[in-house]
């Protein structure tokens, strides 16, 4: 709906001024400057810069460690997205049934949304730690965090667990908006509940699925930093060293500024790609924060 407007010519600019001051100083300038630095060699002590063309990008792309990090990031995000979407959809369908207490169960299932990735990391570290982790004990003293593959799975599980609540909130809203008359018409036509779910419900909630696909992908790429720093620090032997963790180490620990800037540009391309997918599939905007 188009809102009726006030005639003032100056006021809207004044209202937008604070937002744009912050955006320019803390978003656009740093982004622009990061992209610029990706074409320079930067001395970490003096901050002196020297134009280097595509030097940093060559170093990034021809570094096998970076390729490895890139690969496991994709694998990690796919695992987190698929586990997250399937489990939360199943739970949302359950919560959407008409029975007493569903609202209480809903609250009890979504509250981990309020926990941080770092907390999820600490909790799963406690459950899976090799010394006396409870889950290690109940899985025949298997030390999950000391082997690359199983550590990777633990990190993905922790990330999925933490984000279930977020997904459930959106799926519940979407399920409630599925028109009941289409479901009833299908029931009269003799479609069983399973068939109704796959033929009708899934189609109606597909915009939400796409939205959650994008949100969970960005979550896996970026927000899981704290989780990994607390749980594995990228190890063992780089098996959980996803792109954001690599960027942090290159920039903050190793002070490779131009190189890290080039890595940032790679991350930017990933964000753009995800956003384009989002626009193409649903015509909706991505809400990343």
């Amino acid at each position, binding site marked *: *709906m188009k*809102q*009726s*407007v*006030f005639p003032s010519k100056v*006021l*809207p*600019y004044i*209202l937008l001024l*604070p937002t744009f001051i*912050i*955006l320019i*100083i*803390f*978003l656009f*300038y*740093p*982004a622009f*400057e*990061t992209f610029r*630095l990706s074409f320079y060699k930067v001395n970490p002590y003096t901050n002196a810069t020297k134009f280097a063309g595509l030097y940093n990008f060559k170093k990034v792309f021809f570094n096998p460690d970076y390729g490895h990090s890139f690969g496991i990031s994709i694998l990690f995000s796919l695992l987190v997205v698929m586990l997250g979407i399937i489990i939360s959809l199943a739970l949302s369908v359950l919560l959407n049934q008409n*029975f007493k207490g569903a609202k209480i*169960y809903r609250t*009890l*299932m979504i*509250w*981990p949304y*309020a*926990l*941080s*990735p*770092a*907390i999820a990391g*600490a*909790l799963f*570290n406690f459950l899976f*730690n090799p010394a*006396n982790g*409870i889950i290690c*004990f109940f899985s025949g003293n298997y030390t999950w965090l000391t082997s690359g593959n199983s550590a990777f799975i633990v990190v993905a599980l922790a990330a999925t*667990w933490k984000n279930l609540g977020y997904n459930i909130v*959106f799926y519940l*809203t*979407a399920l409630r908006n599925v028109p009941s008359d289409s479901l009833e018409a299908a029931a009269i036509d003799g479609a069983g509940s399973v068939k109704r779910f796959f033929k009708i419900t899934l189609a109606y909630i597909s915009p939400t699925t796409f*939205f959650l696909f994008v949100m969970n992908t960005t979550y896996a790429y970026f927000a899981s*930093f704290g989780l990994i*720093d*607390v749980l594995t620090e990228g190890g063992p032997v780089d098996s959980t060293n996803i792109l954001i963790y690599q*960027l*942090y180490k290159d920039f*903050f620990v190793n002070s490779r*500024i131009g190189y*890290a800037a080039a890595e*940032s540009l790679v991350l930017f391309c990933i964000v753009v790609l995800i*956003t384009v997918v989002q626009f193409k599939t649903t*015509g909706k*905007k991505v*809400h*990343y*924060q």
Partner: protein
Amino acid sequence: MIVKKRTIVTFHVLSILSVFIICLPVLLALIISSQTEVQVFSNPPKLTFSNNWVSNYTTAWNRVDLGRMMFNSAFIAIMVTIGKIIMSLLAAFAFTHFDFKGKGILFFVIIITLLLPVPVRIVALFDVVRGFDWINTYAGLIVPFWASATGTFLFIQRFKTIPTELVDASKIDGCRPMQYFFRVLLPLTKNTIGALVVIEFIYIWNQYLWPLMATNTDNMRVVQIGIKMLMNAESSNNWGVIMAGVIITIIPPLFVFFILQESFMKGFALQSEK
């Protein structure tokens, strides 16, 4: 539709089972935080509550100055939330209730910000904040997060659903724009503000990467970093103490979540609907 009694029982069983699995990590953390060091390391693990609460929680609180870090996190989260809500409200008001030159471009610029999450610009953001001498200050942890596309979009959606008659009536009454904003618009926006308080408070409270880089003194650290410091400080890995620290730090975001749950559910889901 009539649902059979047996189906209802199945629903309850499945729900209880799911709730149990989802809550299990925190439940076990709660249990372990009540045990003595000997009980923590017992084999097989002891899975019942004990009575060492006070000792574990005070040890966790003192070992890494959790109090100071709780204050830092709370102060930062509150200041970011307030600033962000004010700025987003004003921006959304401008976009929905005025016609002005460059509106389309300015709106597009706000959309572009969605492509620039912190990691994408962190290298130079760090330089900017250091240039202001804002490392180890509250300003460095607060001000860069004041502008937000999420908040602006959420309020634009809310404002668009408000009947145009309200604006027309206010104009006839000779109401100036800001009077209309405070007297008419704000009271109608409570649920959306509530949702944004939950989203932003939790988002900032839970932040990790930026506070890790923008601070390096113990008295400016936030609780998320504090958890890792606590894990390093507990050299014997006494999980009873570490989990006590975890429980302490999840109380504020959970508190905000539970008291604002209803408006959060209403406002939050707006995000995916265009």
